């Protein structure tokens, strides 16, 4: 069976209330949109969380640990044992744990942030193999160069890049996602390019964009793709 549903979420540490402290309310709407999307994955047989990491194709099981300690909040953790998950998958697990999808069997897999589009698609095909009805949670951020106050300074092409991605996520346009230029994405510091291209192997899904904004100068998207 193919991928029957997918959610797309960003992974800023700031999304975790204990990391954001008094600023947590500023992302209430983003957090709610993420959970709305992830809740809709609960009807699948199992979940695969895809996120950027140092290499492509490193798999983890549902108990793998991740920590927000490297960002200053050591008490916020997922899983058990020594932290091994990259930020994207730590964030994905943290969101899933709070959603209606928490009980679904799940695995996690990395894709290198600079992976070629061909290899991203190949990973996507291997993820979708097998008899199960699979749900994907794809973790990825837009450009970190959206405004004068961005972590990395404003790039004139950042907004149009993110707008293109937003439209593709809204219409489940896998052709556009598969065609995103890795060099441009690197220049724009758009960490989501490779994970979105893993998503680009899906077929027959219809999309809906639940959130697109850059409140701190980094593009955040939430989208839900489901079987019509």
């Amino acid at each position, binding site marked *: 069976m193919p991928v029957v549903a997918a959610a797309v979420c960003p992974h800023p540490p700031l999304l975790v209330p204990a990391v954001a402290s008094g600023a947590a309310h500023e992302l209430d709407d983003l957090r709610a949109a993420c959970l709305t999307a992830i809740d809709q994955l609960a009807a699948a047989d199992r979940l695969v969380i895809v996120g950027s990491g140092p290499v492509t194709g490193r798999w983890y099981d549902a108990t793998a640990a991740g920590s927000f300690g*490297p*960002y*200053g909040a050591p008490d916020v953790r997922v899983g058990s044992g020594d932290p091994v998950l990259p*930020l994207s998958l730590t964030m994905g697990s943290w969101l899933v744990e709070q959603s209606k999808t928490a009980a679904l069997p799940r695995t996690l897999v990395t894709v290198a942030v600079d992976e070629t589009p061909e290899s991203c698609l190949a990973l996507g095909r291997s993820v979708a193999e097998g008899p199960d009805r699979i749900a994907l949670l794809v973790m990825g951020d837009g450009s*970190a160069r959206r405004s004068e106050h961005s*972590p990395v300074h404003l790039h004139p092409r950042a907004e149009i890049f993110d707008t293109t991605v937003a439209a593709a996520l809204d219409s489940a346009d896998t052709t556009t996602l598969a065609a995103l230029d890795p060099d441009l994405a690197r220049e724009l510091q758009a960490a989501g390019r490779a994970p979105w291209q893993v998503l680009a192997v899906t077929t027959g899904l219809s999309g809906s964009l639940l959130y697109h904004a850059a409140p701190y100068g980094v593009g955040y998207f939430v989208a839900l793709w489901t079987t019509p």
Partner: protein
Amino acid sequence: MAEPEVRERVLRLGERVFGPGEFAVMAIVNRTPDSFYDRGATFATDAAYEAIDKAVADGADLVDIGGVKAGYGEPVSEDEELRRTVDFVAGIRQRHPRLIISVDTYRSGVARRVGQAGANLINDTWAGSDPGMAEAAAEVGAGLVCSHVGGLTPRTDPHRMAYDDVVADVIRTTTALAEHAVAAGVRPDSIVIDPTHDFGKNTWQSLELTRRLDELAATGWPVLVAVSNKDFIGETLDLPPGRRGSGTLAALSISAWLGARVFRVHDVPAARQALDLIAVLRGSAEPAGTRRSLA
């Protein structure tokens, strides 16, 4: 708080020697039109000289001259940075022959020229991004501030900086730079290390560095702290740059108690007063006069 163990080395800057327990106040005087706190107040030459005179009168031990805004902003060429700093340093030296002059720069070419003009200390805030910095400081007989910016390139902001242990990372980076500086010929007693709050750090990480500053002091290298009006104080207290004075003094005081030696500040009189009290509390200075209930 237990009284910290005082086992500090002598710090030698210019003609001044700071013994164990003696605090040095470094006044910030920017020759920039766009720095975050003063917004160009001392960009003009006359205003800058007046700021120097006032800092000295207020009790500053050294002044730190910056020709380029630390954060992102208009590009400043090396020629323009030299124009803003070299003659100014020479002018300060003429007016204040014994004042310790520090220059905040990440360019070895600037370090060399301001050193020739009379600067005693190079404040390399971008942590050796110019590999020739230590050699330049050695060549002109200046001391060196060894910083930590988590690998950022000059004038960029941190994005999701992650550390297994930020204090350990700071100690590893700054002491390696200090040892490199010694090897390059900088006087060992003229080298200080700076955890460089906010640079390459989120607020949690800068708070952690402040809380655990004793671990930096335990390396034996004199520690400089530059916490004045920084964003980690502003984010902690939800206050804009102009209203962080009391928070600054609190962070400065804790740093002093935990062993910092040099304090880079905007408000010299406030820092001087706080540090003079802490010096007495730590037992490294005598009260000015204790008559109360003793007559």
